[in-house]
């Protein structure tokens, strides 16, 4: 069963992302409310997909992407970053350091589901 780590300091946003991805069969979800927690969880347990907010306290999404890509074990973990208008520069940075896709708020449930499906199937196949 594919495990998804959803990282956002906004609980509403995490809930929204989970609701959007729910229709994909068999996913299980873990929430992380900070970039630090995400890194801790990633260092302790494998995941199949990372959905990541850019704007978080202490360390933001970019630093999480950098950390992930610096780890051999996590080199192939698919990452979707979730951005907002105004994040263009950070988004470019995140893609440059290794995020796979980005979604800009507002996005539709179908749009993020399609991205997740593509990444999960690419990884499996």
């Amino acid at each position, binding site marked *: 069963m594919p495990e998804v780590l959803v990282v956002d*300091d*906004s*609980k*509403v*946003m995490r*809930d*929204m992302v989970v*609701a*959007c991805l*729910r*229709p994909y069969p068999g996913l299980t979800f873990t929430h992380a*409310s*900070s970039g*630090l*927690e995400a*890194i*801790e969880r990633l*260092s*302790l347990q494998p995941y199949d997909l990372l959905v990541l907010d850019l*704007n*978080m*306290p*202490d*360390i933001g999404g970019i*630093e999480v992407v950098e*950390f992930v890509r*610096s*780890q051999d074990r996590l080199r192939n973990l698919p990452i979707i970053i*979730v951005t*907002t*208008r*105004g994040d263009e520069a950070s988004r470019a940075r995140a893609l440059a350091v290794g995020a796979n896709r980005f979604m800009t*708020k*507002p*996005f539709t*449930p*179908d749009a993020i*589901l399609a991205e997740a499906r593509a990444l999960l199937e690419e990884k499996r196949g």
Partner: protein
Amino acid sequence: MTGSVDLADFLPAYLAEAEELLGAAQRHLLAVEASVRRGLAHPRAVRELFRALHTIKGLSAMVDVESIVSIAHWMETSLRHSDRAGGRLPESSVEPLMEGLREIEQRVRQLAAGKPVTPVPAGLLERLEALEAAALGTDPAKPAPVALELDATVSARLSAAEREQLTVGAAGKRAVRLDFIPGAERASSGITINSVRERVAKLAEAVKVLPLSGPAAGGGSLTFVLLLLTDATDDALLEAAGGPPASVRALTAAPAVPAAPIVTTEPELEAVVARVEEEPEEQRRGGGTLRVEVSRLDEALERLAALVVNRSRLTRAVAALTAAGAPTRELTAILQENGRQLRDMRAAIIRLRMVKVADVLERLPLLVRGLRRSTGKAVRLELEVGDAELDKAVADRLLPALVHLVRNAVDHALELPEERRAAGKPEEGLVRLACHGGASGLLELSVTDDGRGVDAEAVARRAGVPVPATSDGLLDVLCRPGFSTRDAATSTSGRGMGMDIVRRITVDQLGGELRLETRPGQGTTFRLRVPLTITLLDALIFECAGLRYAVAVGSVEELIDVDAARLTRPAGASGVVLVERRGSAVPLLSLERLLERGSPDGQRGGTGAKALIVRQRGEPVAFAVDRLLGQQEIVLRPLEDPLVRVPGVAGATDLGDGQPTLVLDLAALGAARSGNGRRERAT
């Protein structure tokens, strides 16, 4: 399946989070303002303000509220520049940012009230955009002179502003590095980076937290490095990180240089800043807290009520057994224990609805700030609310009353600075809001000012009544609807004092008490006592036989128009009237008759113009009423006296006329009054 997710379902959760974020944003902006006035940078507050706005923007985009997205975006843009300037902001930027927050807040309120959201006001975005340019002109942060004892990997990841913070420090605080190594075992005993971060936040300000991968002490492969400014001892910090393999070391050889001297003081804002500094953000935004919709708690309470009813059946059954001579001593003991447990359970659920009074009042400093500007009076606001808590429903209702009292105190009670000086008082007036846990189930609050006091003679003259002999009498006059101590409406208090509203809320709505103590020339105290908890109900208000009644919206299945021409009266069914509803016949009861309001000559028993359909023992039954008056949220006041505890009446409420209005439980009313026993079923 894919089409089934509707992000609009997240609106209630969005509103709750947006409110919380706005509260945080206001606190941070006040802190920024206080720093700006002292000529200092406040990079952390600027960044937190930025983050709060950014989150609001993203969430608002998801639920499609474009005007909030735009306002937040432009506020954020100007803050981004300030952030780059090391958290410095020109003083002229504060007011437009305040305005932006107010506009966002107004729109969040509109959404919450189900109203259309107004577009961005003319000129606001331009004003915010102009700030951006202004911010660009401010001085960039100066590079720090002192060297930090840090290894290159960590040092390379610090910004100039962060380095400046660590070297300059906050008054006398030490700069230290705390290393925390996460692990599966530690995580399973609750020691995670989030919990460590939260505990550390109570002891220190975290300037930077970063992950370092590579072999770590204790066999780990990841280290979190926390760079802190603190007064706490190494041992305390180590303990907060769960002990070794965590470690602590100092970053500078000598204590950091004290902060720059304070240029101007703004006591009220300083107090705000002090509070913001004392209470780490993580604590207030509540790591380890859970947001739950109030309706879910109410559902739990309802389930519990069913258990209580069941228990009383059990009690009766056991009593019958006892009467029949069965050995029930143990059963009785268990029942008693069970009763106690149910009471504890109820108390526990009610506690879940409690909010901190301090959180409820977080907007008051902002209010007073505005009043200070508009009245030209010097005011200090003191909040002494401690850890007191209140039911959210009570808190939401009470806040407007407290706002009113604070507003009145600044507006009417406090004198202008020169007047105060002449009276031998400090120029700065004081308004203090305090609360104390009162007698069981009640909270006492007081709003005190050191202003001119209420002039009983002037009040009596204005109201055209004799001078009241007691302070209760004086309060009665002040609370007369429309009473005002000012001739002209003032911009801040609107039409006069509005004390009638304060009394309506405290006394009539919440069932509490309001008292007044005043001494000429020395000041006034209003004391409020309110219940810690109340029951709220979404209700339909209707009229029947000349009286108004309320009924819980949730209990009503449907509202139908009653067309007298389409009623049927089956022969031999002793006066039962059937009304057609989507092809099936539903018995129509005259509510007028059930309420014993029919004229004594009997069968007038009106069929009304409208009917409420309610399920009674699973079957739909229509209750005829004369007129629907609307839907509103009401405070349900249970009727406690046995004289009026009757089936079918859930309680009473005050719709604003000072008269109790009955809140009906139609199903129970129908069941209790359906003639002798049950009526034949229709259809």
